[in-house]
């Protein structure tokens, strides 16, 4: 009886729907694009990333010299010139060609490891957040265990077990990317699953699979995309760090971190050999970070241009 009193009809005043001109329909995509376009730094960073990807894909046809097996013995340690744009290393190899070929390794390592981490982490986060209960507890405890290791220590531990090489580095970086994605998606899922549209979907008899995939997952994409682009920078640095300390790509592979490690021995005589791999890592990671910042500002509804 009491309940009925509370269920008094509220003022049935429906706000008039503003008329929308057909040409200016606002979809999430156009909204995103409208906000993203204003961030000039991020747009430039995005173009730079696109250029890098094209260069990396075309590297085998673009390089002026063979990155591993061409030795110019007449110009060892040469400084940058028209013939060798970035100079020559102490073994006579063309640094520009090596940097260009190295971009394939670094971009692949960064992208693949984060992609694997994001896919596995997102799936785990969706399951944990949607079902809660014991599956949530198990998944979150696994994440806690992974979180207990400081990033690169876990990667070194994995490399110590699996052995060195760039493939194992990618696996190691992917594994430590998983828990952050899982937590992020779980948090979003917990917030989304009590919203009206999810309840509505459940009330018309949608299966768990449909609710999770069609209704909850799209709501988590924005956060995952932002984190994805910010994470690629970190992963490129981690992969290069592992190669630098001799656990990733091995010489003569033109991996940027491995190149820097080789250059260390000749820092006194030819510092330019170390300069270009450093700049390559810096510019690539910077571009991904600026792009990620721009995506975050465009996708996060909390941040409004003031």
């Amino acid at each position, binding site marked *: 009886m009491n309940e009925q009193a509370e269920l008094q009809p509220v003022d049935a005043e429906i706000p008039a729907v503003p008329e929308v001109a057909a040409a200016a329909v606002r979809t999430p995509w156009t909204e995103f694009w409208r906000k993203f376009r204003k961030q000039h730094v991020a747009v430039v960073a995005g173009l730079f990333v696109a250029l890098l990807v094209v260069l990396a894909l075309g590297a085998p046809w673009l390089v002026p010299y063979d990155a591993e097996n061409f030795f110019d013995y007449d110009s060892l340690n040469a400084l940058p010139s028209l013939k060798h744009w970035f100079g020559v290393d102490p073994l006579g190899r063309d640094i520009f060609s090596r940097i260009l070929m190295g971009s394939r390794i670094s971009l692949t390592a960064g992208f693949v490891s984060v992609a694997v981490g994001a896919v596995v982490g997102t799936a785990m986060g969706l399951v944990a957040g949607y079902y809660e209960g014991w599956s949530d507890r198990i998944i979150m405890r696994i994440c806690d265990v992974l979180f*207990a*290791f*400081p*990033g*690169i*220590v*876990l990667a*070194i*531990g994995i*490399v*110590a077990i699996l052995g060195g090489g760039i493939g194992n580095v990618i696996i190691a970086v992917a594994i430590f990317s998983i828990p952050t994605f899982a937590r992020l998606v779980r948090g979003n899922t917990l917030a989304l699953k009590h919203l009206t549209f999810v309840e509505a979907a459940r009330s018309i008899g949608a299966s768990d699979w449909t609710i999770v995939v069609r209704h909850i997952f799209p709501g988590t994409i924005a956060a995952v995309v932002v984190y994805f682009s910010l994470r690629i*920078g970190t992963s490129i*640095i981690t992969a*290069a*760090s592992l190669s*630098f*300390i*001799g*656990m990733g790509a091995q010489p003569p592979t033109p991996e940027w*971190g491995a190149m*820097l490690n080789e*250059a*260390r021995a000749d*820092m*006194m005589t030819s*510092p330019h050999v*170390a300069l270009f*791999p*450093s700049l390559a*890592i*810096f510019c690539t*990671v*910077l571009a991904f*970070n*600026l792009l990620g*910042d721009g995506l975050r500002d465009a996708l996060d509804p909390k941040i409004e241009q003031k």
Partner: protein
Amino acid sequence: MLHGDFGRSLRTKRPVSGEIAERFMPTFWLTVTSMAWSVAIGMLIGTLSAVWRNRWPDRVGMTLAVSGISFPAFALGMLLMQIFSVQLHWLPTVGADTWRHYILPSLTLGAAVAAIMARFTRSSFVDILHEDYVRTARAKGLPETVVIVKHGLRNALIPVVTMMGLQFGFLLGGSIVVEVVFNWPGMGRLLVDAVDMRDYPVIQALVLLFSLEFVLINLIVDVLYAVINPTIRYR
């Protein structure tokens, strides 16, 4: 292992605990000094950027910060060493004997953390400056410095302290790379050497120790959290 016995190193045949004990303090001091300066500088830059948001201090601060998180530690270490040790002869290159040896490795290790702290403090502070209690403080005529320091900074600190705990893990991991660059006699280089030599007892003990340290630091941070924020009381 649960008895505190980690066995003997396969390489030197000495007990693992002894090997690690003599390497512990250099790494400990390196991470602590890096943490101290990077948190101080990072929070300072973050606060200044938030207060002068979208003006030149913000632009300079945030450009520095995004560069800081994008520059790999090993490249920065090599660059600093080249400039200050090799070219200018101001500071020693390798080893860990005097305080002068700490300057470059500590700068290298802390740079990324300072950058992350600056970005994080800024965003946390910008949120705080929109809160009602900040408007109230301004409305009752408090000088702007009091508003910023007393009402702003204290509240902005809460998420920043959590971030500090997480960053400590980053520092512990980063110390491995920095120790290789500066030939630092610490646990990080011991770990790298152990992996090279497949010295599994040492690897196992070190990975455990690094994680233990990280978990302990986060425990301390959780306690600190309750001290700073009176609304949180663990039952």
